[in-house]
């Protein structure tokens, strides 16, 4: 067993159907030790279903699912002692205080770090003496987060963990996740908050309609997308329209506006250069554009060649 690229989560070809709906369709997902892996996709893409299969709540139809090298369906409880899970929508028992829930979940997981528990309650400004029914959504989320982050585990499985948290609490969360990673921990983070993803994640996987459509580092993903170019030239450019990878070309005399696949940028700029560049603006895609492109409708079928290798 090597510890460099050891897969903590290793899913390949996972299919899960509910009745006639195919929630997961040959999904692949790999999370290696020590990384924070962003798990992204539009609502209903199958993120939560994947996590629930991974936790042994749902039984897979076909495919391979390994968690810490074990079978999450058969050895669920045994494997669960090494992870902590925070669902996107935390439901608490109306009569149990937040503090009681933290202890309950922590002890069932095999113990809490008392010092960290104390620190987390303080940093999250959580009142642990309030009953579950009187917590707001954000506070219910904090209860589950404290219970998870104070546990001594190897893996955090977080399903949109910061929904309902204010920005200050969100940054407290980020800080603890970074600490956790610095200590050698692994994180699977499903999230819609792009700033959070950008700050925390080493790699991301984007899924749509139950299939992975993209995986890699954020830099890799950026590489796969288009750059917007605006150029003022000495004379009209030629050959740009014929260049593969150029889109939405708009030439007005000496001015050219277009988008180009980032892998083709060198050739495009070469053509511009021949026409004499007076000014050039090249804007890399923002994360939002990146995700909108993947979340939106105009997406080609997954093409294995396009999937960047994250290693």
């Amino acid at each position: 067993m090597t510890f460099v690229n050891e897969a903590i989560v290793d899913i390949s070809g996972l299919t899960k159907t509910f009745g006639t709906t195919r929630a997961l369709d040959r999904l692949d997902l790999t999370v290696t030790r020590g990384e924070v892996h962003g798990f992204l996709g539009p609502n209903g893409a199958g993120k939560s279903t994947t996590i629930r299969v991974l936790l042994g709540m749902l039984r897979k139809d076909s495919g391979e699912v390994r968690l810490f090298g074990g079978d999450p369906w058969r050895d669920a409880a045994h494997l669960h002692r090494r992870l902590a899970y925070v669902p996107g929508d935390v439901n608490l028992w109306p009569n149990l205080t937040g503090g009681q829930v933290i202890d309950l979940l922590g002890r069932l997981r095999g113990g809490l770090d008392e010092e960290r528990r104390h620190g987390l309650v303080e940093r999250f400004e959580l009142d642990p003496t309030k009953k579950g029914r009187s917590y707001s959504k954000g506070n219910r989320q904090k209860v589950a987060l404290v219970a998870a982050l104070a546990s001594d585990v190897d893996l955090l499985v977080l399903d949109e963990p910061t929904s309902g948290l204010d920005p200050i609490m969100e940054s407290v969360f980020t800080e603890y996740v970074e600490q956790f990673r610095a200590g050698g921990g692994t994180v699977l983070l499903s999230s819609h908050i792009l700033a959070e993803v950008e700050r925390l994640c080493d790699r991301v996987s984007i899924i749509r309609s139950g299939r992975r459509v993209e995986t890699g580092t954020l830099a890799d993903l950026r590489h796969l997308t288009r750059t917007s170019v605006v150029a003022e030239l000495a004379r009209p450019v030629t050959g740009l329209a014929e260049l593969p990878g150029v889109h939405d070309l708009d030439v007005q005399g000496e001015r050219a506006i277009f988008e180009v696949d980032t892998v083709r940028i060198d050739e495009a700029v070469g053509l511009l250069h021949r026409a004499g560049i007076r000014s050039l603006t090249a804007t890399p895609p923002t994360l939002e554009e990146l995700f909108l492109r993947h979340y939106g409708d105009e997406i080609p079928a997954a093409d294995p060649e396009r999937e960047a290798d994250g290693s």
Partner: protein
Amino acid sequence: MTGTGRFLVAFLRRDRWHYLWWALGATLLYYSQAVSVKGLYTTQAEFDRAAASMQDNTAFIAMAGPARALNTIGGQVMWQASAFGAVVVGLMSMFLVGRHTRVEEESGRDELLRASAVSRHASLTAALVGSLLANVLVGALVAVSLVSFPLDRADSVAVGVGLALCGWVFTGAALVAAQLTSSTRGMYAVSGAVIAVVYALRAIGDVGDPVLSWLSPIGWYQAMHPYSGLRWGPALLLLGLAAAASGAAYALFGRRDFGGGVWAARPGPDRAEPSLTTALGFAWWLQRASIIGWTGGIALLGLAYGSIGDDVGTLIGDSSGSQDVFVQGGGSLVDGFYAVAIAVIALVGAGFTVSSALRPHSEEESGRVEVLLATGLTRRRWLLAQVVVTIAGTLLVLAGGGLGLGVGFGLVTGDGGRIGPFLLDTVGYVAPSLVLAGLARLLYGVLPRWAYLAWAGLGLGVLMVFFGPLLRLPGWLQGLSPYHHLALVPAEPFRWLPFVALLLVAGALTAVGLVGFGRRDLR
């Protein structure tokens, strides 16, 4: 009072079906008494005899109210329906007020509404007026139905007016409770306790010191004496108390914060005691309140049956149909009566058993199981802990019923010797009840969508116990009910074979359910 009218219209729209069903229910309660009393006795002499035996029965008086003019249809209607009718309007008022006060505040919707251009009291006033109107509707329908029966016009109107005024008092009480507590649950607990105390005061007063009945609004309602010398004075008491309570609610409303109550929400422990954080400890904690409540309630039911004592014959009367029910097991009428009483207690107690066995289902539906099972807790241990608590709870509930029965019997007859036997006889019903629990487990584990069908099992048990022998239903049909196989103790001697067999069936059903739960998707 800007905005009150708009709120009121919105509330009335939202509640229109509630209004209708509560009003129809209450009307049916009164009207059906009139119909059934009229159909029951063919001659006035027969009616007089029945009335004479009823008016000496302390248990009945404690349950219904002071016995007046029981040999008239009107007197019977007032006696049998008024106390329960008052409880019905009490519950209706509590829920209607709760819906538009605490529930709205807890959900945050009220905040949204209050932030618009309305006066501070608008939603409170609308909730008050809405509930008052609902009670007027109930009272009016009851009065109209009784006048049309036909019963005396003025007295029938008084029955309706008194009922509506009782509802007004409970509306005021619920409105006060909504200001005192800071949660919907707390508000319902306080309002429910007020209804219970008001009912209990008149029960104790009616059989003992009449002063206590005069401390109870239900007592005032019954003191209006419709159909037996109507007087309107007590109605003024009801009106006065309703006004005072509503006024108090307004005063309290001004003194509390939005979302809070006059009584601050009590903080709980910030750490969990070790006993809570084991599978079994947690399952027990989850159901503790329900077990205590059911045990107490069933003990009271047992007490009520037991307090009939050995004076069973006069109560049942000479109707051959009812005699048949009680002597079906052979043996004496007293033993036959208590055999049925114990079966009834067991069937009511099975309500706890089925709801307890379905608790894992509601936990799963509300999404709280997932977090638990994502820890080191296995599915099997989690569910087994729930099974253990259901068994223990069922034993406790049945023991409570048997003990109540024995103690009630002992208090009335002075014979405490039956406490032990009654207790054992009742607890023996644990076997068929656990078969129902097993059915619930099986459905939950294998077909969770159909888990609530376990209630049908209890329904079948109830039908077979009451109607199986009377309707001479075929043996196989009666045999479907787990209750059919047990000896009707104490009318028949206890038999071990069916007892053990039922336990084995319960165990097998539970085992299949456990295996099924281990193999299916969580929902």
